[in-house]
């Protein structure tokens, strides 16, 4: 594993480098140890320190859902999560969903249904949908819409997103 450089990204971290803390996360199945300032969000740690830029920064305030990832199997907003608080956690990002050479059923379904236009919200939509399917609380389109309401798509691909999630639910249901 590559050596992680000390915290130097912004003025905060330079001034308070002494405050850096060691955090170990299992990210997409690989243990990653980071020395980070306590005010680093999980989103910034993933994007800027681990170069996992699939997870997007939209509003950075928990309102748009673009930063949605799975922490210990549950979907959360990584922009409102302090990385130091998740020491020891298992993190799954969009980069970790696909199997060896095969897309995750949700990734395939989003392609099949043209469930995006610009694509910026898509990693968050897909991770959120993975969480939704694992929760098992949504069956109807109404329930999918309600439980996906934390993910905003400003291109307005919602009907296709709902259709894609329905397809993935059926595919994944068949397998289990």
């Amino acid at each position, binding site marked *: 594993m590559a050596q992680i450089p000390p915290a130097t990204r912004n003025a905060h971290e330079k001034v308070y480098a002494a405050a850096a803390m060691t955090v170990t996360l299992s990210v997409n199945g690989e243990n990653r140890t980071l020395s980070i300032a306590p005010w680093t969000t999980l989103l910034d740690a993933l994007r800027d320190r681990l170069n996992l830029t699939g997870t997007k920064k939209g509003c950075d305030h928990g309102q748009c859902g673009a930063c949605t990832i799975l922490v210990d199997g549950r979907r959360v907003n990584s922009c409102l999560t302090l990385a130091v*608080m998740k020491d020891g956690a298992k993190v799954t990002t969009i980069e970790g969903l696909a199997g060896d050479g095969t897309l995750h059923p949700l990734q395939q379904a989003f392609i099949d249904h043209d469930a995006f236009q610009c694509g910026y919200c898509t990693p968050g939509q897909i991770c959120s949908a993975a969480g939704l399917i694992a929760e098992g609380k949504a069956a109807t389109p109404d329930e999918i819409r309600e439980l996906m309401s934390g993910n905003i798509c400003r291109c307005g691909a919602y009907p296709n997103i709902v259709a894609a999630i329905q397809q993935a639910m059926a595919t994944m249901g068949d397998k289990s």
Partner: protein
Amino acid sequence: MINFQYARATDVADAVRQIAADPAAKFIAGGTNLVDLMKYDVERPLRLIDISRLPLNTVEQTAEGGLRIGALVPNSDLAYHPLVERRYPILSSAILAGASQQLRNMASTGGNLLQRTRCFYFYDTTTPCNKRKPGSGCSAINGINRINAILGTSEACIATHPSDMCVALAALEAKVHVAGPTGERAIAFSDFHRLPGDTPQRDTNLEPDEIITAIELPAQGFAASYSYLKIRDRLSYAFALVSVAAALELEGPRFREARLALGGVAHKPWRSPEAEASLRGQVADESSFARAADLLLRDAKGFSHNAFKIDLARRAIVRALTQAARGTPQIQSSKKIR
């Protein structure tokens, strides 16, 4: 976000010790509201005490037939807990009406009570706000106040409490268990949140060195006749303009017991003993509903942009009572009225 130190609490006593030792410190659990406010520079703690690993994450039945909910139970787990779904469905409904599933997965039960207001001026550090900076003035009273309060306001503050969950907890008459340097105490839900008065910087009667450990529900859950109706600018994932928790016990066509709490209209969940008393023994029909609504809204006062909330609340109360009495509660995943 300002720089801060980070420490973990090892147990409740340690958490209390750490917070009592440092007035500039704050607890963090789910962080959904605090981290957001820190990014806006509204909250500027010099030290965060992480309580998220404390063993306060269980839901247990009490000897009195109620439930004791640990302060760190995530909102989503609480909403879907089998005992809550079956015995306190109004609480499940209210929780699922709030935020998004991502946020509910993060947010804690105790933290939900301690949410700060969503008043635009509280968030905007370039404007005066008595809640953010005591004595600086209230920008909302003569500003953009469409989302602000119509009940229990003061000349210092017209902010609302944003929680949905708390509206249900008020109707259920929950108790808040807290621990501090001198021991533990229980606070009745109606005494937990405050009206703004001339100290709007204080949202609750929790002392700065106290920690919420649990929420206790009494045995009565009103599972047969309830509704949580939330009116907002979009169908999901928006704060309430007005919300109503109606929890009834009916005996034939008449009310034996009625609880009514409003959200989105005041600095705390709004109840009126007179409104609830007016329903007891009466036939559950449109006229008793309307009378209760009038009593609940008796002291309502609108501002330049939010006077519409008074009529909206009146109709929402009647609608929620109708749903509760008919046993057709508002379903949060389908906004159709049954």
